[in-house]
């Protein structure tokens, strides 16, 4: 089975690096691209057709919650996981209402991220991507 292709959307480079490091040790998952703002996220979701998008809420050009329906429109089959430092109690329901499959708090990424991705993927069934290469981000 080909690895699950993941698009990582977060404006903080250190967070992206750490999540990438976490996913790299699991051969089932592959970072196919990174984006640091909503515009780049939409563009890469359209082009790379990832299986999973890990989407931060606090993006510089648009809220992750606002961009979520657009991502869903451009890549309808992808699973979207909100990854945020905001309080899950308040954001989880809103994220789900806007079409996110899961919400993962940044405070518990180490324990919750992999199970959440696994859960999201298993619900949909693995879908092949268009290309297997990792694509870095274009914005600074």
């Amino acid at each position, binding site marked *: 089975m080909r690895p699950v292709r993941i698009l990582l959307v977060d*404006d*903080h480079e*250190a*967070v992206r*690096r*750490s*999540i990438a*490091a*976490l996913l790299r*040790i699991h051969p089932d998952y592959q970072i196919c691209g990174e984006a640091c703002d909503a515009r780049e996220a939409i563009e890469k979701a359209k082009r790379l057709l990832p299986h999973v998008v890990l989407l931060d809420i*606090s993006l510089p050009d648009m809220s992750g919650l606002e961009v979520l329906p657009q991502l869903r429109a451009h890549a309808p089959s992808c699973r979207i996981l909100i990854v945020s*430092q905001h309080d899950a109690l308040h954001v989880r329901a809103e994220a789900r209402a806007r079409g996110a499959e899961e919400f993962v708090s*940044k*405070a518990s*990424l*180490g*324990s919750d991220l992999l199970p959440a991705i696994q859960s999201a993927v298993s619900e949909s069934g693995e879908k092949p991507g268009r290309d297997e290469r990792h694509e870095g981000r274009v914005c600074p």
Partner: protein
Amino acid sequence: MATLVHRQLDPPGADKRTKESPAKVQDLLGELASRFFSSQPLERIENARWATNLANWVHARQPEPELMYRALVEQIPAVVFVAYLDEGMSQAYVSPQIEAALGFSPGEWLKDPILWYQQLHPEDKGRWSVEAAQMFLTGKPLTSAYRVLSRQGRVVWFQCDAKMIRHSDGSPWFILGVGFDITELKQTEQALHERTETLRSLSTRLLELQDQERRRIARELHDGVGQCLVALKLNFEMYEQQPREELWAESKGLLEQCLTDIRNLSYLLHPPLLDEAGLLLALKAYVDGFSKRSAIEAELSLPEVLPELPKGVEIAIFRVLQESLTNVIRHAHSKRVRIVLDCHPTTIGLTVEDFGRGIQPEVLQTLRTSGARPGIGLTGMQERVSELGGSFSITSGVDGTEVAVTLPLPTASPLGSNLIAIDAGRQKRR
């Protein structure tokens, strides 16, 4: 004494006229004067007492009544008027004070029966009509302030106290009124109102600035330190499962970033060295850090000593420097910056000059004319300096930008007393 009655005070019909005694008219004058003066400053109250005393004196001696009453009404600091009500409303008498107040002689005033209404301020005519109608219907005295235009068009405020006098059969006879020039009082009121509005606006602005500052700090915490700690925690959790050298190195870098962010945040809240070591060392330390972080060469010129400065002045100078250097990093594209702090016996001045691309003329113009926006930092600087009574200027061209600030110093802190010196990087009080 000149005779200034231009029309007969008495109305046609002597039988009606004789029913109103001079004493009653005198009492009315006294009542009107007292009612008005009771809410006036002391000087005017004294005038009211004088008028009452004069009236009493007149009444006790029973001299020529008309002359005495004229003496009374022509001496009080107000315009006295009488207007008939039985043929519309036409003025029968106006005291000579009208000329000093409005520039019209009593003769002119009485000759034209509608002149008084023409000179009434257009915005007050409607109110006058309502209030006068109430007086006619209810018989209650009219007490109100109106604006009247002088011959030259100047707006004169009159506090008008008028009472309707009836014939013995109850029909309206005439109005007896006193108009006090309260223009000065109104101008003071207006100035006070404007001052209050300015203070309210400033207060709102300060709250807005405070809110913006809090947002900025919250954003710094959430996006800076918070995200670093998220990554750090994740790295530690991965390291626990699988110790790897790159995770360790990455985490050390993140810790460094956290320390830098916290230090910057601390500077945003309050420059730490300012309290502990004084302005000179705080400026020097900040400029050193700025140069290291930005790789922009900074030339810093400080006086050897400073008098003990008010805290507000110290913080204002530090904030102006901080905002100016932040703008240099963000916008100027300058490779070097020159900072000069000059202290004189009565003023202290700071100049921050860069050699970058300058501020766009339209942005600079907006800033100069409205003092608002293009960068909340600049607006904040201006307001802070203005509040301390200082001056603030920005000069910009294609070869760079100069921010200059001068703040007044209390004269009680001359150079030479309570001096603070900086020597080889250490600052101490002498």
